[in-house]
C-alpha cells in the first residue's frame, strides 16, 4: 500500500471501513466496536436499498390521505370549513398572503413530491445499477437530506392554530385527521433518505468488482 493510493482508492477497496460517528478506520472483517468512540462500525448502512424502499413506500402511501383528508377544521359563525393542504394554500392566495402561500406550497407539496422522485430515482439507479453520474447522485442525495425536515411546517401550523384559535362561538380550529397522515409521510421519507448510504452511490458495478478483488487481496 503506497501513499499514491490515497485520493484514488476508497477505504473499502483496500479492505477498510470507517466509523460513522468519529471517522476512525478499521479492517472490514474486524467486528469489534470502534476503538475511539465505541460505536458499532459498519461497512455500509445495513440493507440500505431495501430499507429505503420500505420507508419510502410508507411515506408515499401516507401522502395520499394526507392530501385528500382535511388537515384543519374551522368551526366559526360562517359555518364548518374543512381545509386540505391544497385548499389551505388557495385560501392564503385568496387573502393575498402570496409569500406565505408560496412557503406552504413549497414545504407541503414541492418538497415532499420532489423528495419522493429523487429517492425513487436514487433507489432505482442503485437497484438496477444504472449508469448515472456519481456527482449528480451525490448532489441529489445531499438535497434530500437537507430539505426533508422542512416539510413539517404544515403540521406545526395546524398545531399552533388549533391551540390558539379556541374562541368558543366565534371560531374554533381543530386538527383534521389528514395531518396525522402528513406527519407520517414526512417522518418516513426522512427515514428513507437517512437509510440510503451515500457511499453506495459511488459504487458502480465496476467499483463493486474491484472491491471484491480488494477484499480478497487483503484478507
Amino acid at each position: 500500500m503506497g501513499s499514491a493510493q490515497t485520493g484514488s482508492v476508497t477505504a473499502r477497496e483496500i479492505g477498510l471501513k470507517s466509523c460513522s460517528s468519529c471517522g476512525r478506520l478499521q479492517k472490514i472483517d474486524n467486528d469489534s466496536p470502534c476503538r475511539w468512540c465505541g460505536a458499532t462500525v459498519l461497512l455500509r448502512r445495513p440493507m440500505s436499498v431495501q430499507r429505503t424502499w420500505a420507508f419510502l413506500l410508507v411515506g408515499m402511501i401516507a401522502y395520499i390521505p394526507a392530501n385528500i383528508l382535511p388537515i384543519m377544521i374551522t368551526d366559526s359563525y360562517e359555518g364548518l370549513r374543512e381545509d386540505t393542504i391544497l385548499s389551505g394554500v388557495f385560501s392564503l392566495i385568496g387573502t393575498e398572503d402570496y409569500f406565505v402561500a408560496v412557503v406552504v406550497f413549497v414545504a407541503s407539496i414541492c418538497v415532499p413530491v420532489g423528495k419522493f422522485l429523487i429517492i425513487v430515482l436514487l433507489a432505482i439507479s442503485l437497484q438496477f445499477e444504472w449508469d448515472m453520474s456519481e456527482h449528480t447522485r451525490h448532489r441529489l442525495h445531499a438535497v434530500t437530506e437537507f430539505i426533508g425536515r422542512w416539510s413539517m411546517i404544515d403540521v406545526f401550523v395546524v398545531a399552533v392554530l388549533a391551540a390558539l384559535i379556541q374562541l368558543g362561538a366565534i371560531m374554533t380550529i381543530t386538527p383534521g385527521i389528514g395531518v396525522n397522515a402528513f406527519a407520517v409521510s414526512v417522518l418516513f421519507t426522512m427515514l428513507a433518505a437517512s437509510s440510503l448510504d451515500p457511499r453506495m452511490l459511488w459504487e458502480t458495478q465496476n467499483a463493486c468488482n474491484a472491491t471484491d478483488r480488494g477484499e480478497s487481496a487483503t484478507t
Partner: protein
Amino acid sequence: MTFTSSNQEVSFDNMVACPGCDLLHHRRALALGEYAQCERCNDVIQTCKSHTVDRSLAATLAGLVLLLLSLFTPFLSLSRAGIESSISVLDAVQSLWNSQMRWLGLATLALIVLLPLGRLVLMAYVLLRLRLRRKVRQSMRLAFRWAVKLEPWAMADIFMVGVVVSLVKISTLAKLSVGIAFWALLALVGVSWLINSTLCKDTIWARLRQDQ
C-alpha cells in the same frame, strides 16, 4: 504511509475516508479555522475549529436557558371581541393530544421540546466535563454520539417557521401579540445554528477517544 501498530491490530489513524463517498485521504494537520474537503465529492472530511469546547459550551448553556424559558412563559396571545386566548408551547402540543391525535401530539412534543432538550443536555454534559478537564468517561462518548445523531430530528427552527405562517394566517382575524417564549425560541434557533457552526467533531473526538 506508516502504520503505527499496537498489540492486536494495525492502525490506520493517519488516514481518513470521506463520509460521503468513501474515498481515502491522508489525515492532514490543519491550522485553526481550516477544513479539508474530499477531492472527489467536496464533502468536508476534516475540520479544525478554534475554541470549539468554549464556544459550543457557551452556546449550549444559552440554549438550555432559552429552551426552559420558552416552556414556562406565554408564547402567543390573541384577543378578539373581548375573548382572550394565550398559549404556551406545551398548549400547542396539548391541543393535538386533546383532539384524539395522541401520537401526533407526542411526536410534536418530541420534535420541538424533548429532542432539542435532550441534545442540549447531552452536549452540555460532554462539553462541561471537557471544559473542566475531568476524566473522560465511556458515557461521554455515548452522549456525544447521540447528540450528533439527534441533530436533524430537533425541529425548533421549522416550528418557528410554522408559527410565523400561523401568525400571518390569523392576522386578519384577531389582534395578536407574541410573548417571551416566542423570542426565546427565535433566539434558540440562532443559538442552535451557533452550536453547529462552532462544534468541531474532530477536535471533540480527539479528546474523547479511548485509546490514548
